[in-house]
Each structure stands twice: as C-alpha cells, then as structure tokens.
C-alpha cells in the first residue's frame, strides 16, 4: 500500500461530515445531473395542475384521435382524444407521491424496528428479524398483490402495500449498522456518563445510520415507483381514467397497432424518473460510503 500524505486543510475551511459529503458528491457529475432532474420532476409534479395545456381526464379532442405528436399536442393524442402531454405531467404527481410516501413510511418503521432490534438484541431482535424473514418470504410484488386482494384496488392501498414491503429492507440495514455502532467507544462513553437508552439510540446511534438510510431511500424510490406502476398496469392500482403511468400503459396496450406513441411517452416517463433516482442513489452511495475512497 502506498501512503499518500493528506493535504493539510486550510484554516478557514473546517471539515464537517456535511462538507466532506458535498465535496465528494460534487465530483459525481452524473449523480449531480440526476439530482437536478429529480428536483425538476418534483417541481413539475407540484406545479402541473397550473400549467398543463389541457384537462388530463376530461378534455376530449374528438377530431384528432390517435394523432401523432404536434405543436398543439406535444406528445400526441390517445385513442379517446385526451392530450398525452397533460396526462404524463399529471401522472408525475401520482408516481412521485406514491414513491416518496411509500418509501418514507417503510423507512420510518424499518429504521425504528432496526434500531430497536440492534440495540436491545435478544428477544426483541429475534421477534423483529423473524417478522422480516416472513415478509422476505414473499417476493415483493406478490406481497403487494396479496395486500391489494385483501384491501381492494386503488392507489391508496398500493402505497400501503409498497410501504409494508419496504420495511424489512430498512430494518435489516439499520439493525446491522446499530450492532456495529453500539460497541464503539463513543457509545460506551455516553453510557458511562449515565445517558439513558433514548439518548444513546437517538443522539449517538441513529445519526450513524442516516447515511445508509439515505442511500437506500433513493434506490428504493425507483423500485417503489416501478412496483406501483406495475400494480396499476395489471389493473390493481390506479384505475382509468386516472393518468397514472402504469395505468396509461395498460390502456395503451389495446391500440398498440395503430398508436404506439400512446405507450411511448408514459414508458419514457417511468424510465427517466426511475433512472434519475437510481443514478442519484449510486452517487449518494459513492459519496457516503467510506469504503469507496480507495477505489
């Protein structure tokens, strides 16, 4: 191993974990672009209702059914006469919301369970990890289908289903981190000065798990968006005429021969959105994972 002398930090530049992260993240140009694209998508999703050119569900242009993209309809018109551009924009709201909300719920419960299992060990650990094993015993989308079969279809239930199957991933991840953090000296030190369990877990252990949770959060959003869209595609999620991307593709299937462009734009929308979250997640991982440095 060749040892390189680290450059001495200038006096006015204090190295905090945050500035370290930002310094490494900035170098990942692809991830920075992906991050900007994600922000752009979020803004589009929030503002869509104010600037879509047509009503996504109730505007029907009967004179240009199945029309190809044009100046009046940027992404063309679907077989019912609806403007695809407006529908794709409004669909961004549904897909992003489904992705964010379901992963946030999964991360919240998963992190809490992981901290509990890792910190308490013993009986708590066994019960929680067994519960995760059981959730893992169902392939992801199957679990979601089972839940939708019980609760009924619709986007709300899809979000619940996707949240539930995000829980074990976060629980395992956080448990592993907690187990390795709790034997470090700073936790020992906190214990020795009489800090109670809550303080130790929330102030000393939880911050150490955030990096991993953030990386998984971004990568899971991609998976969750695909799962939610898949459920809508097989008819168990958002129902027509809701402009959800998966549901739009399902509607487009009937007329693929005459109007392939109806399927093209929702496909591209899902692909670019998920791609952006995955590239962002990869970049975050590279910036937050200390192991990467030596590569």
């Amino acid at each position, binding site marked *: 191993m060749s040892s390189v002398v680290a450059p001495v930090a200038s006096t006015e530049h204090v190295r905090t974990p945050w500035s370290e992260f930002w310094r490494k993240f900035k170098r990942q140009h692809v991830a920075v672009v992906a991050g900007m694209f994600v922000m752009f998508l979020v803004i589009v999703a929030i503002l869509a209702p104010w600037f879509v050119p047509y009503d996504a569900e109730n505007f029907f242009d009967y004179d240009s059914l199945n029309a190809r993209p044009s100046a009046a309809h940027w992404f063309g018109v679907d077989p019912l006469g609806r403007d695809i551009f407006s529908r794709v924009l409004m669909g961004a709201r549904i897909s992003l919301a489904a992705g964010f909300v379901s992963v946030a719920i999964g991360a919240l419960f998963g992190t809490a369970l992981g901290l509990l299992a890792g910190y308490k060990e013993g009986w708590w650990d066994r019960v929680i990890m067994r519960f995760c094993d059981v959730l893992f015993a*169902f*392939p992801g989308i*199957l679990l979601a*289908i089972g839940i939708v*079969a*019980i609760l009924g279809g619709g986007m709300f239930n899809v979000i619940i289903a996707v949240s539930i199957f995000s829980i074990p991933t976060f629980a395992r991840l956080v448990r592993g981190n907690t187990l390795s953090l709790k034997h470090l000296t700073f936790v020992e030190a906190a214990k020795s000065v009489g800090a109670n369990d809550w303080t130790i877990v929330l102030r000393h252990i939880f911050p150490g798990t955030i990096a991993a949770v953030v990386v998984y959060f971004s990568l899971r959003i991609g998976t969750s968006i695909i799962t939610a869209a898949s459920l809508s595609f097989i008819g168990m999620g958002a129902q027509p005429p809701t402009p959800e991307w998966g549901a739009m593709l399902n509607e487009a299937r009937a007329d693929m021969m005459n109007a392939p462009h109806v399927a093209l734009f929702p*496909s591209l929308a899902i692909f670019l959105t998920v791609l952006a979250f995955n590239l962002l997640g990869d970049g975050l991982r590279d910036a937050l994972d200390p192991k990467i440095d*030596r590569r």
Partner: protein
Amino acid sequence: MLQYIVKRLLGLIPTLLIVGVLVFMFVHLLPGDPARLAAGPDATPATVDLVRKDLGLDKSLPEQFVRFVSGVLQGDFGRSVRTKRPVSTEIRERFFPTFWLTIAAMAWSVTIGMILGVVSAVWRNRWPDRVGMTLAVSGISFPAFALGMVLMQIFSVQLRWLPTIGADSWRHYILPSLTLGAAVAAIMARFTRSSFVDILQEDYVRTARAKGLAESVVVLKHGLRNALIPVVTMMGLQFGFLLGGSIVVEVVFNWPGMGRLLVDAVDMRDYPVIQGLVLLFSLEFILINLIVDVLYAVINPTIRYR
C-alpha cells in the same frame, strides 16, 4: 455438512408456520363472510349455510387451521370458485410454462450479467465499463411491462420475426424471457462488477500476476472463483425477483402461467386460487433460498462452522 443442512431445515419451521398462518388468515381477513364469498353472490342463505358446513367454516379457527394444513400437505387447496375445479389441478396446468420461463430468463440473464460484470471490472473506468454500467443502470430502471411492450412492438408487430402471445414453441419463449431477465442481468452485472473489483485488489491476485501468469488465467482462475461466492447468493435472491416479475410479464405476453392465473384470480375474487398460489410462490421462494444457502456453504466452508 449434513448437520448444517438439518440445522437450516429446522430453522425454516417457524417461518413456514408463520407463512402458513398468514395465508390461512388471508381468507378471514377479507371483508365479508368467507362462506358467502365461496358460495357466490346469488346463493340463498340455505346454500351459504351448506357451504359453510362443507368448508368447515363453522368450526373454531384453530380447528380450521389444522384442517387447512393437513389439506395442504395432501395437496388439497380447495376448489376454485370460478371453475369449480380443484385448485391443485388449476395450478398444475399453469406450473410448467412459468417454471420454464423463469429458468430461461435466469439462464441468459446470469450468463450475460456476469460477463458484463467481469468485463466492466477488468476494464474499469474505461469504455467497456462505461457501456456495461450504462446498460446495467438502464436495465434496472426500465420496468418489465414497458420493455415487454417495446420488444413486442419491434420484433413481433413491425419486423414480424417472433410470435406475440402464447407458449407453444421455443420461439414464444424468446421475448418473454428477455423481458423477464433484463433487470436480473442488470443487477447481476452491477453486483459481479463490484465483487470483482474488490477481488482484483487482493494480495493473492497481485501475487498471481507477479508470478507471471497470463492475465486471462489471473482473471478467470483467481478472480472469478472467489468473486462467485457473493454472486451465488445474489443469484438466489434474484430468483425470487423473477417469480414476482413473471406475474407482470405473463400479463404482457398473455402467458398461460401461474402469474396470469393469479392476476385473473384477483380480478374474479377467486380466493382459494389466490391462497394456493401465494402459498406456492412463497414455498418456492423459501426453498430456493435454502438451496442457495446450502450452495453457499459448499463453496465457502467457513459458513458451515458458525
């Protein structure tokens, strides 16, 4: 080794039990009376009572559970509400199309994924790596149903090279298995690459090079063998992913498999069929994970003695 397998098998019992209880409870968690669901919407109260007796729904829950488990152990999953045929018959007809589709997808995606991963690791940060990893990240970002529609549009509709739907000949398998395997190939490529990059930095790889061995021998013999250990585990996890993915792909290609059966059953509220399929899918997944663990122990002896 035998001891390890026995230990793993015993460890499965609690998981199996909980999965069994969940699948059993499934029918009871549904809104409404299970007997009415089974009898159909037009049944008279007398018929519903008859069905309730017939299905044993008038007994206590523990009694029903024992009955359910002993039925399952004998291959009896009840009867389909829709076709009135035994669920086991329904599933048996659909099993092999899904099985072969999954195997075909697994075979190509693991082969291609590992080749892409090794090539990317060996030429790290140069153009083969960039091309390989761009393909891989695209593969995990493109949803299977959209990919299936695109492939069908190009190769079946426009070019007319391949059939669109059905499962009659090997040509029917090409597009669905490509669609199903794409994400797995991408994940395998990313995983193999990172595992391989680690291995190539190990001391024994440097020693092998220092001895003057040909680079191809270093990569294939010293590198690949050691990189395989985590890759095999990943492969097992991906099998579960394929089982789930087959549900969506079968809808796109109208494939006569279990996934399609499940979606139809959910549509028609055919609960015995859903119950049987969910149980079967989970059992398969658990079994595959067990096989992977055992394989892992075969490759890596340190696991056995933990």
